[in-house]
């Protein structure tokens, strides 16, 4: 198990390295006249040249890449071209905000999808049809449309929640809960749709296994068989989908944060992109990549816990 973990970790680090290298080269090759963009059309050619020299963007890309890599390894991702704030600071002050929403959405969608999926698989008939319809709609309708819809109905018309803004969890838990409810709901629906299909499918598959009949023949109750045995066996494939959905949720957070004016990673991703703030975009790519690697590793570990065969190999 330890070797398995180490191997996954190493491959994650390699993946991260390749992603950041490719991103760095592409971003810097296409950066254009950075000084002009920062200083605006009114600046003189001399100040622009000076700015470019300050930022080091006139030097060859390869040299700058190794420079960046060396600093990045020590945790120094440079400073934003536009705000002069350090990249680490800009990102980490917002990371918790985004994580609280994304993790919240992961948990919510995992739980709801499991409940719905098991229900559909056991009841079949109309319950199954209903869940299928929900899944198709939730899959097809883009998350930001759902978000816009939720804002209009629950914030602007019913006034149950504030339409925008974010309350720190440390400041007020209920305030936080109320500020993230709509964003999490908007994010979760798509993920639920994808996961519920998998849960339903693998529960139905697991129920048809021979050992389910044998467990029944031993006098175990249907609930015990489904919730203890079938669900544990169906958990693997469902978790794999959850891992994929997590990546999707991070992406979805970018748009949802914009709609609900939540000061998270999504918001600076959009502004950094629009401005072409290369150091900040690089930092974001690395952090999001690392997040994905960590979550995949966690999911693999849980898989190992659920499935003894994975543990051995």
């Amino acid at each position: 198990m330890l070797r398995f973990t180490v191997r996954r970790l190493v491959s994650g680090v390699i993946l991260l390295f390749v992603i950041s290298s490719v991103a760095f080269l592409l971003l810097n090759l296409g950066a254009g006249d950075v000084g002009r963009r920062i200083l605006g059309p009114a600046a003189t050619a001399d100040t622009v040249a000076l700015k470019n020299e300050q930022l080091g963007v006139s030097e060859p890309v390869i040299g700058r890449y190794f420079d960046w890599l060396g600093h990045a390894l020590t945790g120094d991702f440079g400073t934003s071209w536009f705000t002069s704030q350090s990249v680490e600071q800009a990102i980490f002050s917002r990371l918790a905000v985004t994580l609280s929403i994304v993790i919240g959405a992961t948990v919510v969608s995992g739980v709801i999808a499991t409940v719905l999926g098991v229900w559909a698989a056991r009841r079949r008939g109309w319950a199954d049809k209903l869940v299928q319809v929900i899944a198709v709609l939730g899959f097809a309708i883009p998350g930001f449309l759902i978000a816009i819809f939720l804002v209009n109905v629950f914030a602007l018309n019913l006034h149950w929640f504030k339409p925008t803004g974010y309350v720190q969890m440390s400041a007020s838990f209920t305030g936080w809960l109320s500020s993230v409810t709509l964003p999490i709901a908007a994010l979760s629906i798509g993920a639920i749709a994808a996961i519920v299909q998998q849960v339903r499918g693998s529960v139905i598959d697991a129920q048809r296994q021979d050992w389910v009949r044998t467990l029944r023949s031993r006098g175990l109750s249907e609930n015990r068989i489904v919730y203890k045995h079938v669900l544990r066996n169906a958990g693997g494939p469902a978790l794999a989908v959850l891992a994929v959905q997590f990546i999707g949720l991070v992406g979805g957070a970018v748009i949802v944060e914009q709609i609900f004016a939540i000061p998270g990673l999504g918001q600076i991703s959009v502004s950094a992109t629009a401005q072409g703030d290369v150091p900040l975009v690089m930092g974001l790519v690395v952090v999001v990549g690392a997040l994905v690697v960590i979550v995949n590793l966690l999911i693999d570990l849980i898989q190992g816990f659920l499935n003894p065969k994975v543990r051995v190999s």
Partner: protein
Amino acid sequence: MTESITNVMPDTATEERAARSHLARRLLRNGAALFAFIVLGLIVLAAILAPLLTPQDPNFANIQSLLSAPSAEHPLGTDGAGRDVLARLLYGTRYSLAAALLGTAIAAILGVVGGLIAGYYGRWFASVSSWVISLIMALPGIVVLLAARAVLGPSLWMAMAVFGVLLAPAFFRLVYTAVVNVRGELFVDAARVSGVGDFSIIGRHILSVVRAPIIIQFAFVMGIAIAIQAGLDFLGLGDTSVPTWGNMLNDAFARMYKNPVLLVWPSVAIALTSVALALFANALRDELERSGRVRVRRRRVRGTAPAPAVVLPADVVVHPETTADSREKLLVVDSLVVGYDQPDGSLKQVVNGVSLTVRQGEVHGLIGESGSGKTQTAWSILRLLPEGGRIVGGSVVFGGTDLASLSDTEMRKVRGRRISYIPQEPMSNLDPSFTIGSQLVEPMRIALGISSADAKKRALELLARVGIPNPERTYAAYPHEVSGGMAQRVLIAGAVSCEPDLVIADEPTTALDVTVQAEILDLLRGLQKELGVSILIVTHNFGVVADLCDRVSVMRDGLIVETGPVRAIFADPQHPYTKSLFDAILEDGAARGHLEHAADRHAPAGGAAS
């Protein structure tokens, strides 16, 4: 981004050419698919006919009339910049569809070509591609698109080209898997050997298999493309000079407080298109799957099925008891009829009126060839028939109560405690995720109500009793860590763990190695003597019957044809079918023992479960 990588391969790899016209017709009859066709048709028409449907210029901003209400000139009013909403919606359809089509087409071309090459020629191209794909899929698509936008600037078409690259894996995986599967087929080898060119093989054999899944995936990916494209424009990161649904949303969202109606039009357009694409893809997938196999439907309401046709067992041969058997009747099955509900509402009968009696402490053999209904009979006594199967008629009286009329909860109390079960295929009958020990302890704790320490002690004793050399180690092992023979011993231990009165053993030796078969039979015989339990053993092997049974019932086509004490039947088989079974054994002459065991071993695991 990666959410499109759903399983779109239908179960059927091959699809009859003639079935395709039926497919189109069935799709039109499918409500969801029809809806999808109509919506998509209207949307495409709107895109093509935009200049005819409105005289307005979608980009002409009339500063005199910002956010004006609907009028004859502007049927849907104007937006925040004074542009005609209807014109923007119609032209937006053009741009949004074209952009999504571009992105999806790029994804499809890259993925299909890459998948064909990687799947057909394999080697380094396959490993490099799969590595690149895991790289692409590791990041949220929107983050990559944002980064690309930082490099390439706000171009609608560029963004969609990048999107195409990002979603190429959706097609790659599909095609790659299909090609790898087909490449291994004999007919492809045959075609290659007979000199058919690679392109011709790919075209004829491989593309025909993946064509339908590609169409399905295309619809899914296009739905995602519409959403992503609108999302980028909505964030204000797109090309604002182009009228798209996303740009309309962006403008409307900024004016949400003043004029929320503006949100409705682009939202409805995006949602309708996405849903129509997903519905189309789903319907096509469902129809393809349905044409591939007959689905067994959930049980219908009792009483609507036709009355069971009990074939009167007029020609059943009953041998007289050799000695007066005073033992009490434990299980009396009377005119049992078992059937499976079919999708068309009819009932397929597999057991046509079986009657048999098992006395206390008796070993009763139920013998017959595959498909004779013996396993179905065994399962229906325990009421463990697979989905769709049910007892249609007759009674199963056990210890004075008719099991067929018990509630599910009452029946559960019978299972394990009073009647237990030994399955045919040991390896697939243990839950792979739990240790052997926990699977023995759990039923005992529930059925006997003993503490987990006592249950563990008892489990270890049982494991030792069934001949497992190191009970402690096997107790802690997972099912995949033990051999088939060991697993069957574990299952036997489980079957007797709660001191049942009757054990139903469904071909308990068929799936095992020859040498192990005899040991398992010895074990069953020993346990039976020791515990005085009754056994109903299902088998297709007269050797097992001779070895173990007191009495035997011969089954054929869902009916008992001959029944009686083993000695009597062996000495004087009456029914032609019983005779033919004996003849089949005797034909092999002296060498029979080995041959028959060999045949046993090679019998398909699922064959006798019919």
